[in-house]
């Protein structure tokens, strides 16, 4: 049974999970029982929902940015997967994927209304729904090899991009140029059309590569959408280096979650599609490792990659066991994942010099693992409602993980940065000559 999550509740959920990264999903139908402490944490988070909602509605520009980033990134992924399910003729999955995309549109509309007001929110909602309808029509054109239908949809999508640009220019009181906003949406729709074409042509490597690009482009556009809603005075400090780091880690960790989900589903579609999806999982791991190198240096980054590789391999070993319907292998994989979570938590806690203790990190990683193992169980059993609900919860959880990790990194890194300016002048001759 699909839970009826309202847009407001989704905003609450996002904030609650951000605030409690160690909270396991609460009350998931059919999911295995979460450990009592995590259930308690989830219940505690739920009890603070009213307060969190107020915080979300009046949130700081940075919070608004984080929410836009997350929901725009999710839009790209859900749209890709909906179009793909149309092309793959998966009639059981299409309505569920469509409803999930609609849920995200509701959440985005709520955010836009909070940021830009009711009238602009209404106009945005209409534009966004039209955009989704046109994407679906394009996918249908691809499926039917109907060139004229594809062209008509392309024309409609590009017209929608123009309308979006005009809307944002007006809604932001000119802080964003219509042409800039239009260009961003044009790129988005082009990527979505291209990936559908590639998927239909069984060029899975290209389809999955574009999917990742589309996610990253939409995720990063969240900053501009949030910034355009505030005055230049409020925008001071909006894009500081610590905020950029938080955003980048949130993007990569959310991407990790979603790419694993993509690889899990691709497993049921055959080896060529799995290989393409897995290549993007590896690309994400490489990007995360390079990111860690920027913070902790190359030696520690190599250690991170080993620990992370074990985590990813453990998740896909479980997926293989589910797809093979091998209960013994599933049990072994679950046991392995528990051990891996402990080791990864130990590593991360060490990196941030115990700013985050091992125990809550272990719980957060275990909750993340459980989202993914439960997801593939549900997907294999064709309980798509539940699978997509788990996907959403797991994805939103990653923002909390990123916030917690980056907060700890900030406390660890800042004392190590050089203090003050540099003494890189020795004579005063430059002063005289440059005058």
């Amino acid at each position, binding site marked *: 049974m699909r839970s009826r999550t309202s847009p407001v509740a989704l905003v609450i959920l996002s904030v609650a999970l951000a605030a409690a990264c160690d909270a396991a999903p609460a009350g998931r139908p059919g999911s295995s029982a979460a450990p009592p402490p995590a259930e308690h944490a989830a219940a505690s988070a739920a009890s603070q929902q009213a307060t969190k909602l107020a915080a979300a509605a009046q949130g700081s520009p940075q919070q608004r940015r984080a929410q836009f980033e997350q929901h725009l990134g999710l839009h790209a992924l859900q749209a890709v997967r909906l179009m793909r399910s149309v092309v793959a003729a998966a009639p059981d999955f299409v309505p569920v994927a469509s409803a999930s995309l609609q849920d995200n549109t509701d959440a985005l509309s709520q955010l836009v209304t909070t940021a830009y007001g009711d009238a602009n929110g209404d106009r945005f909602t209409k534009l966004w729904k039209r955009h989704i309808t046109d994407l679906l029509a394009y996918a249908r054109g691809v499926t039917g090899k109907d060139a004229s239908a594809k062209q008509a949809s392309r024309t409609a999508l590009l017209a929608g991009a123009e309308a979006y640009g005009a809307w944002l220019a007006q809604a932001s009181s000119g802080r964003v140029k219509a042409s800039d906003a239009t260009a961003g949406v044009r790129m988005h729709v082009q990527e979505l059309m291209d990936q559908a074409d590639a998927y239909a042509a069984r060029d899975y490597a290209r389809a999955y590569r574009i999917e990742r690009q589309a996610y990253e482009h939409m995720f990063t556009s969240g900053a501009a959408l949030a910034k355009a809603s505030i005055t230049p005075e409020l925008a001071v400090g909006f894009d500081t280096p610590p905020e950029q780091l938080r955003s980048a880690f949130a993007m990569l960790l959310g991407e990790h979650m979603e790419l694993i989900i993509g690889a899990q589903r691709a497993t049921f579609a055959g080896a060529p599609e799995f290989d393409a999806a897995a290549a993007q999982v590896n690309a994400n791991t490489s990007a995360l490792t390079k990111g860690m190198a920027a913070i902790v240096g190359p030696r520690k980054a190599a250690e991170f990659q080993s620990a992370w590789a074990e985590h990813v391999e453990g998740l896909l*070993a479980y997926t293989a066991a589910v797809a093979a319907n091998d209960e013994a292998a599933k049990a072994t994989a679950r046991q392995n994942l528990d051990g891996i979570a402990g080791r990864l938590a130990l590593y991360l806690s060490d990196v941030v010099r115990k700013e985050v203790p091992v125990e809550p990190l272990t719980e957060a990683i275990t909750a993340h693992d459980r989202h993914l193992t439960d997801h593939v169980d549900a997907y294999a059993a064709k309980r798509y409602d539940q699978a997509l609900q788990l996907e959403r919860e797991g994805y939103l959880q990653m923002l909390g993980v990123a916030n917690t990790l980056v907060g700890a990194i900030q406390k660890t890194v800042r004392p190590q940065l050089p203090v003050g300016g540099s003494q890189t002048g*020795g004579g005063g001759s430059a002063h005289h000559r440059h005058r």
Partner: protein
Amino acid sequence: MTRGRRRLAAAVAALALLVGCSGSGEQRPEPSPAASSPASDRTAAGAEAARGFRSVHGYQATPIPVRLQIPRIGVDTSLDHLGRAPNGTVQEPSRWDVAGWYAPGPRPGDPGSAVILGHVDSKRGPAVFFRLRELRHGDQIDVTRADGATVRFVVQRTAKYDKRLFPTDEVYYPTLTPALRLVTCGGQFDATTGHYRSNIIVFATMRP
């Protein structure tokens, strides 16, 4: 419309779009990519592929930078390694005519801001970064690494900061965007301390 009805309508619309192409005399689509072989065979092959999955291992650190070239201002220098001085400030380059790379920070081309410092002058005249302040948006900076590869950066802006207000985060704070910062001295020279009062900072991003 209630939320439930809206969701139902969305699902119906999606289904209509999905199945609509088979009606009205339209050509029936060919088997979809995922439907061209029995599902059980595909899943078995997918399971086998997933079982054989190996994550990326063996992280190779990016080679260290060894040379800096800035054609616009005639800079061509090897690079020394700098660290943090005991008082927490960045070490000064030990040679007037050679710039230094802040080695605890990112390597050029990796995510984050690589930082290279150089003197503007000595008591005897101009030093390696004497003309750094002339760099403008679009100017090119090349960093050669130990493996011989060159990473190209493009100047975004050049700015002067009072040393008391040095933008530490803008220069040293980790980010995931590959960037380069060049730092030297500028502004008023304080003869009593023997130091300049400001720093000139060039902000550059990696060329894709």
